[in-house]
Every structure is written in C-alpha cells, then in structure tokens.
C-alpha cells in the first residue's frame, strides 16, 4: 500500500519492517498471556536474518555509523 502510494508524494517514503512471525509454523498465541518459551521466541526474533537486514537498512537511512 505504501509502495504504491509513495509515488504520489514528492519526497521519498521508505518502508522498513520488523516481523515477529516469519513462518507459519512460528505460532505464538494471540492473548494477554505469554509463556516463557514464547517470550524467548520474541526476544530471538529480532536476530533473524530479515530483521537484522531491516536494522541495517534503517541504520543507513538514518545515517548512523554502527
């Protein structure tokens, strides 16, 4: 949606996603309770290759030296 509409503006719009569940099998229940295992999964999710790539891109866009 953003990609298509970004053409309507005269400034660049970049979109960066951090996804918690990348595979259908990574099931974490949708409720107001988390198990230890689920908490661990959520913490780990940040280190997935895709999310690390997103972090890298965000870092470049914001012009930060890591």
């Amino acid at each position: 949606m953003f990609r298509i509409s970004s053409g309507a503006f005269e400034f660049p719009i970049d979109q960066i996603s951090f996804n918690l569940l990348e595979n259908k099998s990574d099931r974490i229940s949708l409720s107001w309770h988390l198990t230890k295992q689920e908490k661990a999964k959520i913490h780990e999710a940040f280190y997935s290759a895709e999310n690390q790539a997103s972090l890298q891109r965000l870092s470049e866009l914001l012009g930060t030296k890591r």
Partner: protein
Amino acid sequence: MKINDQDWNFIEVIRAFFPFRLFIAHLKHNLFSLVFWLILFLIVGDQFGSSFGITFLFLSPEYLGEVSGLSFGLLGFALGGFIIGFNTYSYIKIGARYPFLTTISKPFYKFCINNSLIPLAFIVFYLYRMIQFQIAEEFATTSTLFYYSFSFIAGLLVFFIFSFFYFFPISRRNRKYVDQTVKPISSPIHKREKWYDLFRSQKDRTYIYIGRRFRLMTSRSARHFDKKLVQEVYAKNRISSTLFELLTIGMFFSLSLFSGYDILEVPAATSIILLLTISSMIFSALHSWLKGWVYPLLVVVVLLMNFISAQSGVFRYSSYAFGLDYSKKDIYSIQAIRKMAENEMLNETSKESYINMLENWKAATNESKPKLVIVNSSGGGSRSALWTMVVFQQVDKTLKNKLTKHTQMITGASGGMVGAAYYRELVLRREIGEIKNVTSKVFAQNISKDMLNKLSFMASTNDILIRAQKCEFNGHQYTIERGYAFETQLHKNTNYVLDHSLGYYKDYEQRGLIPTMIFSPTIINDGRRMLISSQSLSFLTQTKDNLQNSYENIDIHALLSKQNTGDLRFSSVVRASATFPFVMPMVTLPTEPEIQLMDAGIRDNYGGKTTLEFIDALKDWIQKNTSGVIIVQIRDTKKVLNDETYKQISFLDKLTLPLEICIEISHESKILTKRECFVSVQVPLNFQSIK
C-alpha cells in the same frame, strides 16, 4: 472371568459394567452434563477459546501473581467441587434407573465411585497436558512437575474428603429411622423426583459395580422390595446437597463482590470451573422442573433480556472511559460530524499547532533535513506489546537512540500500542532525567507479564452476573468491569508509570521530547474511526482534495465538546484501541446515541491508513523540511509468510472461509491498485446505521 462366583465372558462384563452403563446413561438421559465436561476437555485440549488463551489459564494457573503449588491446589479444589456437583445432579437424574442401589450401603458414595469414568479420564488428560505444556513452554524441571501434580491432586482430595464427611457424617452413619419422604437426595433447587415409580419401570438387570474396597461386585435384585422398604432404605441413606449447592453459589457471589482483594483473586481457571459448576447445577435444576421445555425457555429469556436492554438501561452494560463525565452528552449525528469536519478554523488551528510541534521535533533532531520516522505497530495482544518493546529497545541500543529521536508519530492497534505507550513513557522519563537506561531488560519483562488471569477472573465472576463494585476517578463514579481490571493490571505490571491523563503528554509532545501517539479505535455504530491523541487532530478529519467526503475520521476533542478530554485517563485510551472482541468490552463514550469503541485493528491493524492520511495532510511541510519519510513497521506477522501454503477448499470451508477472509481483509488489504489504495483510505466500511 469369575465375579462373585459367577462366570462372565468379556462382552458380558463390558455390558454389565456399572461405570460403563452409567456413561451410556449420561449419553441418553443426562447429555447436558456431558456438554460441560466437553467444554473442559476442549479447553484443556487447546480447542476451545485457544485464541483468547483460556488454555493457559488451566495449564499455567496464576495465584497472587505466580504459578505455584497453591494455584494448582486451588484448581484441583475447584475441580473437586465440579465433580461432586456432577455426581449430585447425576444421582438425582439417573440414580433411580438402578434399583440395586437400594440394596447396598451408602448408595450415593458407591454411585460416585462408579460414576468416575469421565472425571478420572479428565484428571489423567489434564495432568498429561499440564506436564506436556510445562515442559515445552515453561521449561519446568521434574521436581516442579511433581510438585504441581501433587498439589493439584491434593486440592482434589481435600474437596473429596470434605464432601465425604459432609455427606456421610459419622453420627449419621448407623442411624435407623423411617422418614416418609421418598427423597434419596435433597436439593433446594431441584424438583423432587418420585424414585419409587421410576424403580418399578426398570428392568431387573445384574450389574457389575465397584463396591467396598474397590472390589468388583455383582448387584442383587431389588424386585422384592416393596414401596415401604424402599422408603426406609432411602430415609436411612438420604443425603442432602443443600449446603453444597448454597456454598458453591455463596462462594461465587463473594468472589464477585470482593474481587478487589488480592487474596480472593483465585486463579481464573478456578473461577471458570466454579462458573461451570453453578451453570450445570442450575441447568440441571431447571431441567428437573421443566424437562424439555428448558430449551425454549432459555431462548425466551435471552430474547426478553435483549428486548429489555434495548428499551431500558437494564442488562446494557457499559464500559467507561475513566475521567469522562457521563452525565454530559454530545450529539452524535451525521450533521454533527459534518459540522466538525468542515470547521475550517478548527482544522487550520489544529494543523498550525501540529506544524509548530513538527518544528520543535525537527530542532530536537539537530539536523537541517532529518528523516521523519513514523512507527506503525500492529495489534496482537501481549506478543505485540513485547515485540514492539523489543524492537524499540534493540534498535535504540544499536543506533544510539536515533530511532526515538527521529520518530515523530506512532500509530497502530491493540497490543502494539500498549508496548509503544510504555516505551514512550520510559523515553520521556529519560528525557526529564528520572531514569537513565530505557533499554533495561526489566522493562521488557514488565510488559510481558500476565494480564489474562486478572481479566478472566473479573470476566468470570463480576462481569457475568452482578456488577456491584464502583471505582472513582477524577470525582466521577464508574462501575467496575474487566476493562478496569485490564487497566489496573497494566499499571501494576508497569509500576504505575503510565498512570496519567491524556492531556499530560500534550506539552511534552509539543516540545518535541517524545513522539505523538495516534490511537484510532473503531466506532462500532457506523464503522468510522475515532482519532485519539493528546493533540487536536481535526486536520485529519477532512481531506480537501476529495470530491466526496465521507468524514471517516473523528477527532475526540472536537466531538466531546462538553468534556475536558484532557482529563481522559490515558490507559482507557490504550484499552479502547485494544478491545479484542469478547476478551474486553467495547468502550462507551458519552454521546447521544451512545457510541461504542472497539479495537483499532478492526479497521487498520497496522496503522497504515492513519499514516497515509497523516503524510498526505502534512506533505507540504514534510517536503520542505525533511529528507523524506521512513515508515517503520513493527508487525507481529510477516505480510507473506515464508512457508505459506494454500489448501483445497472443503465443503465446510465454503461456509466458514468467507467470514474468515472478511476478518483477514479488515486487518490488511493485500493487493490494491494505486487508485483503490487512495479510495480505500477514504471510504469507510458502512455508514448506514447512523441515526
């Protein structure tokens, strides 16, 4: 096989086995009680209410904030009550079909023992699931598992022992007197069944039952017993379930009335079992009076309640946004909405004020043409709350706080916004020098603490029956319900740092210290979106380029003109955008007619809509002052999952899939053309129901 000197073959044993016959009798004559068992089996088997997490409440019960032996003990105790309840009403209902019960001592006790096929199966199934769950999900050690299982069984046994002494007090064990009432069991709520007549109509069969010291016995015939003898036997063995029934109901009411005390906040699974016990008892009592008429009666009662609630305020429970005065109501009509949206002056002032804030934000970044970051965080309960927290913390850690410095606006739905609200508060506290490190693990732990037990406890004790408790906020009184429980638990988990009013953040946002948050709960009456922020967002309620304005967005400050909207409790706003259907009640606003707010995720789970409208409204300023926009999406589920597969559609799917797809589409439109994309931003779902 030889039982009591009689030869039986295997098939005969099965056919005559009393526990098995009782199971069949439940199927034939006592089906409703099996429905209650089925609910329990489905919950524990993760097949009922699993998306709300009800299974967790049973497999990982919490008491006083932790999973402990005590919490399992309480669960076992409650299940014991459910089992005894099941036995009492089953005995009333089907006991008379077995005349041989009159020939043995303590018939009710023997009946219970023989009626334990289902309870036993459930206990075994529960322990199996609990152990499996605790190992896989909570990394429990063997000793912990033993401790939990032992506590659970101990809880069960405590209840059984209590009931044994209650039903068979020592003083009465050998009492012999004749009472003329033919009541094998007395209950204040059940109709008295005439057992003797039922007796006469039964076939004289031989059963194999579990008798004294758990030995298999064969039953004797009771054919030769005359009416007087049967009466005598019953008088001798009469048991009373009166106290049991009254105690159960009394316990339920007191839990509901005193739910403010931590000690009485039993694990939610316990209150659910208690609720099931009461429902099954009442249903069985009604059934004993009304037989098959009970079903049409229930339909009539529900329809009647519905009618009364539409006509008057009775049964129409409201969940309040704390801080608002519900005695002052603003009109909600299409005219009022149009008037607000077309109030040029209001729109201009709000835009000027926002641009002024953007200038301050820009100054705070120390860059001449900074990137403007908008964060979209998706809904999804605790998992989204924690995920949003983790992403913010980790990115800020790696990029030296550059993410929060560049973020001007945060929008999204439900859980994601809960996490974002907490993180933003921490950032504010860092900015004003109250804390040093916002990336500490403690904060991630806090936001991932359990909210469900408190919520479900309130739902299953208070909300379902009487809502007698009140709370006070800003000098106004409100009825307590699970929405209040949600806020209380959120504040408890986050050490009360978020306990502010909406207006509290206004100045901090204006100064560019923290990003603005835009909440966008759905107005359920007509599908419009209520924009709630500390700032006035009137400029987002009208999109000028548009030929047909459908006035899709409504600014809360403009709508509630009679209120001081700045006093609105911030956590009530967070809650309004996180009212997942059934789990939490819709939030009522003081308007005429009353409007109800529901999860922002219904319309815009990822905040994409608000974001596009926001960029569009401020594009000139963005163009002149920034080097572009970065939209950071913190999503709980990837747009296209890596291992997504598609299945063949079955017969039943044709019925259910269209509904599921509707829900999915409302979460996000996956394929849109450029034109459709803009149209979708501006065309609301349905506007017919406005009066």
